[in-house]
C-alpha cells in the first residue's frame, strides 16, 4: 500500500533537492536556496513516512491491486461528518480575526470566541459522532 504514492513524493523531493543544490551553489542566493530546501523536505518527509508505512504494512490495499473487485472493499469505508455548523463558525471567527488586523484589535474578541467554540464543538462532534 502507498508504494506508488511514496515514490512520487520521494522523487519530487529528490528533484527539488538537486535543483536546490545546483541553484544555491551556482547562484549563492539565499532566499531561493532556503525555499528549495523547504521543498526538498516537503517531498521527503511524507514520502519516507509513506514508504516506511508501506514496508511495515506489507499488504496491498484493494485500491492498489489491478485485479481487485468492488466486493474486496466491502464494509465501512470511513466515517464522514455529514452536516456540521463548526466549519462555518470557524470560518467566521477567522474572518473577524483577519478584520481585526485591519480595523482594530477589538475584533479579535468575537474572532477568538468563535474560533474557540468551533474547536471545542468540532472536537465534541467527532468524539460523540452525534448532533451538537
Amino acid at each position, binding site marked *: 500500500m502507498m508504494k506508488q504514492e511514496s515514490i512520487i513524493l520521494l522523487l519530487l523531493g529528490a528533484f527539488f533537492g538537486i535543483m536546490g543544490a545546483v541553484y544555491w551553489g551556482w547562484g549563492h542566493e539565499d532566499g531561493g536556496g532556503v525555499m528549495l530546501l523547504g521543498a526538498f523536505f516537503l517531498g521527503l518527509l511524507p514520502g519516507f513516512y509513506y514508504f516506511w508505512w508501506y514496508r511495515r504494512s506489507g499488504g496491498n490495499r484493494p485500491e492498489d491491486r489491478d485485479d481487485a473487485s468492488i466486493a474486496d472493499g466491502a464494509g465501512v469505508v470511513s466515517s464522514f461528518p455529514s452536516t456540521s455548523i463548526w466549519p462555518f463558525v470557524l470560518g467566521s471567527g*477567522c474572518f473577524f480575526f483577519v478584520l481585526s488586523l485591519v480595523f482594530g484589535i477589538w475584533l479579535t474578541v468575537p474572532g477568538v470566541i468563535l474560533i474557540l467554540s468551533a474547536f471545542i464543538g468540532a472536537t465534541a462532534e467527532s468524539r460523540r459522532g452525534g448532533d451538537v
Partner: protein
Amino acid sequence: MTDLIERPLDTAPGDPHGAGDHHGHDGGHDDHGPSGILKWLTSTDHKVIGINYTVTSIIMMVIGGAFAEVIRAQLASSTSSLVTLQQYNELFTMHGSFMIYLFVGPFAFAGLANYLVPLQVGAPDMAFPRLNALSYWLYLGGSITMLLGFTASGGPAAFGWVGYAPLTSAVNAPGAGPDLWIGALMLTGFSAIFSGVNLVATIFYLRAPGMTLFRMPIFTWNMLVTGILILLAFPVLTAGLVMLYCDRHFGTHIFEVQGGGVPLLWQHIFWFWGHPEVYILALPFFGMVTDIIPVFSKKPLFGYKGMVFATLTIAALSLGVWAHHMFTTGAVLLPFFSIMSLLIAVPTGIKIFNWIGTMWGGNLHFSTAMLMSIGFVITFLIGGITGIYLASPPLDFFTHDTYFVVAHFHSVVMALTMGAFAGIYFWFPKMTGKMLHEGWGKAQFWTLFIGTQVFTFPMYLLGLHGMPRRMAVYPNNPSWQNMNDWASVGALIIGISTLLFVINVIVSYRRPIIAGDNPWDASSLEWFTSSPPPHHNFVALPPIRSERPVWDFNHPDKPALGHGHGTHAGTHPPTSADATKEVAGS
C-alpha cells in the same frame, strides 16, 4: 452528524446499475437533517461545496470582468479621463486580484475539483468533509474582505496584484485598503492549503478497489499534482504576507532598505509562490480538457502515461523557474532560470501532441464542451509559445512589463477560461440533471474565441512597439490608440460571450432537457451514477479494470488497444464469467 459509510454494491455488466434505488438506502438521513439556509450553512457534502465554489468564483469573474471593461474603456483613447490615475491603479490591481485569487484559483482547485474528484475515484466524499467546508467559508470571507477594500477611505489596494515592495510599505501605500488586500490573501491562502490537503488525502486514501493510481482519470491525476503544488507553494506566500504586514505595522524592516532590509526578497518570495501558482491554475483545466477530448473523439486518451509524466515534470520544473519574472532586476541567475523555463515547453508540448493524437482517427463530435476544449488548446498554444520568448533573458529585457507580457498571460488565462467553460458544459448535466443548450453554447464559444484573439493580438504588437503595462494614459504615443481600440473591441466581445453564458443558464433551467446518467457516453466513474448523484455518491460501482471503467461496462467489445500494457496485469474487459465470480464473492 457523522455517517459511517459502507462501500457500495458491486455491479456486473448488463446489470442495471441501480442508480434509482438510492432512496431506500439513505433517504432516511435526508429526513432528519437541517433544512433551508441552515442546510446550506452546515453542509459538508463535497458536491454542495463544489457548487458553492463554482457559483461564487463565477460571480468574482463577472466583477473582475467589469473592472476590465472599465480599464479597456479608459485605454480606448490616449488621454482619457474616464477614471483618475489613482482609480486606474486601483482598477488593474483589483482586476488582477479578483481574477487570479478569487476566480481562476478557487474555480480550478476547489470548484469542479471538489465536485468531481471523489466521484472519479469512487469515494463517498472528500477525506475531510468539515475541513472542506471550512475551505469554502474562508474563501468567501476572503472574497468579502477583498471587496471591503472598496469601502476604505483611501480606496482599495493600488499597487498591482503582485504588490512589489517597497511600493507596499506603510509610507507608500497607507490605509486600510492594502491591509484588507493582505487579509483577503491570508484567508484565501489558508483556504487553498486546506483544499490541497483534502485533494491529496482523498486521492491517496479513498480510491475504490481496483482504482490504482494509473487508472485514475487524468483530471484527478492533475488535481493530485495541483494539490501537492498548493502545499509546496501557498505557505510561502502566506509567510511573505505576514512579513509584509509586520513591516507595515510592527516596525520590522524585512523589505525596507532603511532598516537593512532587502526589497528584492519580496519578489523572490512572491514569485516562488507565483510561478507554481500559475500551474496550480492551469493543471486542473489541462485535466478537464484531457477528460473531455477523448469522449468527443470516441477514443481513449492517447498517451496516458506520457500525460502523467508530463504533469509531474511540469510540477517539478515549476518550482525552479520563479525568477524568470525577475530577469530585469539584474540580480538573478539568468542562465539557470532561462533553461528551466525553456524546458517547461517540452512537457507542455507532449500534452498538446497527445490531445491531437487522441483526436486523430477519431469520430469527432464538436459539442460546445469539445469546441471550448479545442479553443483552449489553440489559445494555450499561442500563449505558451509567446512564453518561450519570455524565457530568453535578452528577449525578456525589452518585453518585460510591456503589453507583450500582458498579451501573453491573457492568452493563457483566456485559454483557461475556455477550459473552465468546457468543464461547465461537460459536467453541468451531471451536477444538475439538465443539459445546457448547445445553440447558446456555440454562440458563446465563437464570441469568446474570436473576442480573445481580437483582444490579445493588438496587445502583442503594442508591447513590441514599446507600450509599457499599467499605463492609465499614453499621451506621448497617440499612435498606440488604434491598436488599443481593437483590444477594447475584443474585450467587449468577450463580455458579450459572458452574457450569452448567463442567458444559456437561464434558458436551460426554464426549458430543461433532462440529462440522464451518461449523456455523453463518457468513461469515468462519475458517469455511472445518477445525475445528480445521490448523497454519498454511489449505490453501486462497476468493476474497475482500466482508466475507462464506465466505457468498459457499456462497450465491453471495444477495449483500448494495447490494454494491459504495464498499467494493469492480466486484464480484459469484464466478461460474464467475471460477473458471476464477483457476485458470488460479495
